[in-house]
């Protein structure tokens, strides 16, 4: 339900605003390519990119090295992100909420979480390769490691900042702890939880590419790495755009899903 004034959300007349910057960049790119300021081996013409992208997505396998690989690459990558992100949510959210509410858990976790958080995600790559080998497991590990921290930290601060009056109100209305957690604590922390989920999912895509750079046969990161070896800059750019589009769609899907499932997400300010 919307408030009586739709202030701040923008009316329908402004639907194009989110697309203004991408369109402007595209125009600029087109101009640069058309005038030849930057040579095509550094930045191919948008139409060439479109052609490569079309072939990548709709082409038949016999049409070239990358033709028609989109579905299997995207499928593999989405599976890896999905598994890694789910793992991070399953561990990070409950742990974060516990540490936001219970000093014992907060103290217990503080050194470990903050020390591990200081280690750049890429540092785990060599270790993960030794432990899990090249492929699925390594990528999932990296994604889960990276997504854990924003999820954990936001869940913790969300749970800590829930208005104590709401919890008192629940207690006086006879709400016991378990129901209070689901009926008051989680909805009360929803905006922080959403932030954590969105940051976590975003960073999942970043670490997906990292995990796939190591010689796996399929996946969007693998395609980009492969194209670099072959000097196919058009394919690199297609890969980047595909990841951007899928990343944006997954964010929308996450928000839509949360709104669909939780009143508090729907009615969030």
């Amino acid at each position, binding site marked *: 339900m919307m408030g009586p004034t739709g202030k701040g959300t923008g009316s329908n007349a402004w639907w194009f605003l989110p697309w203004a910057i991408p369109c402007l960049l595209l125009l600029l790119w087109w101009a640069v390519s058309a005038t030849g300021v930057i040579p095509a081996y550094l930045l191919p013409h948008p139409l060439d990119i479109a052609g490569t992208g079309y072939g990548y997505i709709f082409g038949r396998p016999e049409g070239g090295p990358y033709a028609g690989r989109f579905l299997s690459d995207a499928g593999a990558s989405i599976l890896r992100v999905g598994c890694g992100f789910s793992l991070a949510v399953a561990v990070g959210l409950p742990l974060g909420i516990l540490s936001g509410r219970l000093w014992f858990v907060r103290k217990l976790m503080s050194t470990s979480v903050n020390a591990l958080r200081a280690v750049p995600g890429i540092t785990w790559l060599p270790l993960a390769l030794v432990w899990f080998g090249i492929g699925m497991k390594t990528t999932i590990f990296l994604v889960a490691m990276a997504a854990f921290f924003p999820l954990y930290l936001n869940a913790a601060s969300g749970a800590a900042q829930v208005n104590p009056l709401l919890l008192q109100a629940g207690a006086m209305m006879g709400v016991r702890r378990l129901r209070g957690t689901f009926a008051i604590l989680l909805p*009360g922390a929803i905006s922080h939880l959403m932030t954590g989920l969105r940051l976590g999912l975003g960073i999942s895509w970043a670490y997906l590419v990292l995990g796939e750079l190591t010689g796996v046969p399929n996946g969007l990161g693998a395609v980009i790495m492969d194209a670099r070896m072959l000097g196919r800059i058009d394919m690199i750019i297609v890969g980047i755009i595909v990841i951007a589009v899928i990343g944006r769609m997954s964010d929308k899907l996450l928000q839509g899903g949360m709104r669909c499932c939780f009143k508090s997400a729907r*009615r969030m300010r």
Partner: protein
Amino acid sequence: MRPNLRAVPLPGQKQKETILHIERLSKVFHLNSGYLPVLDKISFEAKSGDLICMLGRSGCGKSTLLKIIAGFLSPSSGRIVLNEKPVTRPGPDRCVIFQEDALFPWLTVGENITFGLKGKKISEKQKAAEMNRFLNLVGLTEFRDYLPRELSGGMKQRVALARVLILQPQVLLMDEPFASLDAQSREDMQNLLLSLWKELSHTILFVTHDVNEAVVLADRILLMDKNPGRIREEVQVGLPRPRERESSAFLNVTRRLNQALRG
């Protein structure tokens, strides 16, 4: 169906039974700089259907007292007995109306009001009937599907009243609930509270620093002093209801209380 109206004698009749005992309640806060005694051996009793105001200036511990009775804080010594059972934690037999907005912002007015009924063995139909009855009692029927942020301060407090009254609490604890409202809304809310009290006959403990408010509402006023918080005097208001805010009898009582507060 649960009984809607409890058969409690009208205010002023004699056969009311004492349900709430506050026995030598003290509270000391432990601060970095030492001990701060906040409440000192508070004792009083409330009969079923009493409307008692705790009147005092800020810092006299009246809100702390209410929180202890609600079960949010534990006393340093002394005890509270409600219906022969000692009070140790919050429960739906003692509901609080907070000064600040404590509605669940993600629930509509109707959902806020039925929140406490969830998990109870009542059919959806009965729940809806109860919700409509209490929406109507606080005059918010048309606002059932509004969110709290779309309501004025006075309307929020009406929802807060409805969501605890629906639980049929033994004692209603009100912590300066109308203090942040404008004068007109405050008077409306006082009148609403009185009419609800007449209909539902809850026992009400009402904390306020506003002498007028105390005299409009209370059967008895517990006048509190600070450092440490204690009951200085118990005043029986004894004015007939409905009370005329402009009558000389009313003004006499407020004048006396104002002097006592200053003194």
